[in-house]
């Protein structure tokens, strides 16, 4: 391996992994049992996994078509559209949470008439957690899938079209299988970002155990009183997310990449 690549690569590994080592070293391993069985920990973990998964599904449902529009259509102002939909990537998540209030809160532009018509208000519900996570995480999926679509060979689609397939059939039968690895990678990024989401969630969905308190929120609030317990909770979240990603990689991603 050439040194100009190897040395920075090793530095990158050290930079990314050492903070994790710090957590592992400082963790109070003798207390890990009692910390894990504390009331609310399992609840927060379950809520995190469920909401991050729902946010990823919602992002797939809406984000893959959006990526297709950005990569394949000839809509005017596509560059502007692309810049706009990636705004959540640069917006501080807390600001994103306030922005969600201004649109979907019970005083918000859309939320107001929903509240007046039905008495339902989105903030402080589990649905609000999914919405906040989707807002922050979907751009990761859109950017990945758009990249995959641009890299995919459009001649396969042209061939399908000359054989009589309409654009929807072409998308389903040709394009989607072609970019499946990109979609899978985007979905993983999206899921991971949703799982770690903090700012938009605590702002828009609030923080209540069992309803809206995800693991990152539980970790942050535990940090206020008991930093050691917060380290244990962070490691639990890390372990579960790494295990999930490794499992997916073995079962699904590799096959997707090979196909």
């Amino acid at each position, binding site marked *: 391996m050439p040194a100009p690549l190897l040395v920075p690569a090793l530095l990158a590994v050290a930079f990314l992994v050492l903070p994790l080592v710090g957590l592992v070293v400082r963790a109070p391993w003798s207390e890990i049992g009692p910390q894990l069985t504390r009331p609310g920990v399992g609840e927060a973990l379950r809520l995190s996994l469920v909401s991050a998964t729902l946010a990823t599904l919602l992002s797939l449902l809406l984000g893959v078509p959006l990526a297709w529009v950005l990569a394949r259509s000839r809509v005017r102002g596509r560059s502007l559209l692309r810049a706009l939909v990636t705004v959540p990537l640069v917006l501080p998540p807390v600001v994103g949470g306030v922005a969600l*209030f201004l649109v979907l809160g*019970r005083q918000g532009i859309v939320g107001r008439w929903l509240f007046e018509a039905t008495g339902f208000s989105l903030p402080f519900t589990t649905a609000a957690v999914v919405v906040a996570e989707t807002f922050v995480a979907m751009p990761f999926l859109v950017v990945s899938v758009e990249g995959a679509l641009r890299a995919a060979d459009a001649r396969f689609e042209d061939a399908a079209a000359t054989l009589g397939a309409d654009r929807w059939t072409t998308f389903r039968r040709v394009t989607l299988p072609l970019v499946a690895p990109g979609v899978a990678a985007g979905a993983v990024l999206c899921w991971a970002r949703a799982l770690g989401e903090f700012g938009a969630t605590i702002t828009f969905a*609030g*923080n*209540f155990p069992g309803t809206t308190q995800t693991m990152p929120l539980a970790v942050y609030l535990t940090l*206020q009183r008991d930093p050691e317990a917060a380290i244990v909770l962070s490691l639990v979240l890390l372990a579960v997310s790494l295990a999930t990603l490794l499992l997916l990689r073995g079962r699904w991603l590799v096959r997707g990449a090979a196909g």
Partner: protein
Amino acid sequence: MRRGPALGALLLVLAGCGTDAAGAPAGDEVAGTLTVFAAASLTDVLTGLGDQLEADHPGLEVQFSFAGSSALATQVVQGAPADVLASADTEQMGLVTDAGLTDGSPGVFASNVLEIAVPAGNPGGVTGLADFADPDLALAVCAPAVPCGSAAEEVFAAAGVDAQPDTQEDDVRAALTKVQLGEVDAALVYATDVRAAGDAVEGIPFPEAGQAVNEYPICRLAAAPNPVAARAFVDLVRSDAGRRALADAGFRTP
């Protein structure tokens, strides 16, 4: 090489500060950058006092870091380069004192009690603490782990109210923001927060608030990079002018 004399001078300044901790005038100029770590509820009043100190000492720049008292204590214990710590929690200040990081013992300079904050016009028709048991209202309190949350638990216990909040906020300003946005019908915040929010928020005092008086300690830090300015700032906060500013903001002063 060049850093040697500068470091030596810095050590001399630090040593000098250690010897006149009794309060003798330092004689040095109040200048440079002063970093104040302060509880979020002090945002407006300390920013005003900082501006005043900057006006009195043209070579001085006052920087603030406002956050929850426990986050601040953690940052100081982890070595954050602050000059002054103004906390909303004597227990959290105790963690810093126990770690030997304060210069002298912290003194209480203000206290604060809870008040019910409602959006202007009080759309939820909230009248008192008992309304926090109403599951139909959208209600915010602070999380039990932060000071305003433990105070809330005390007043609810004193009033015998089984609170049904929709959210437990990570700090008191986050709870207030939800009132200002009209997303909750009421939140339990400090009297000073209601005062700071202006016309968008109305305050409802309640008798049980006296069960949880929150005291604010302030202290210079032993490792302060700018001990002279730190002393000037703490003196200003505890002066008559400082007390007036605190009272205007809704604090009780000793």
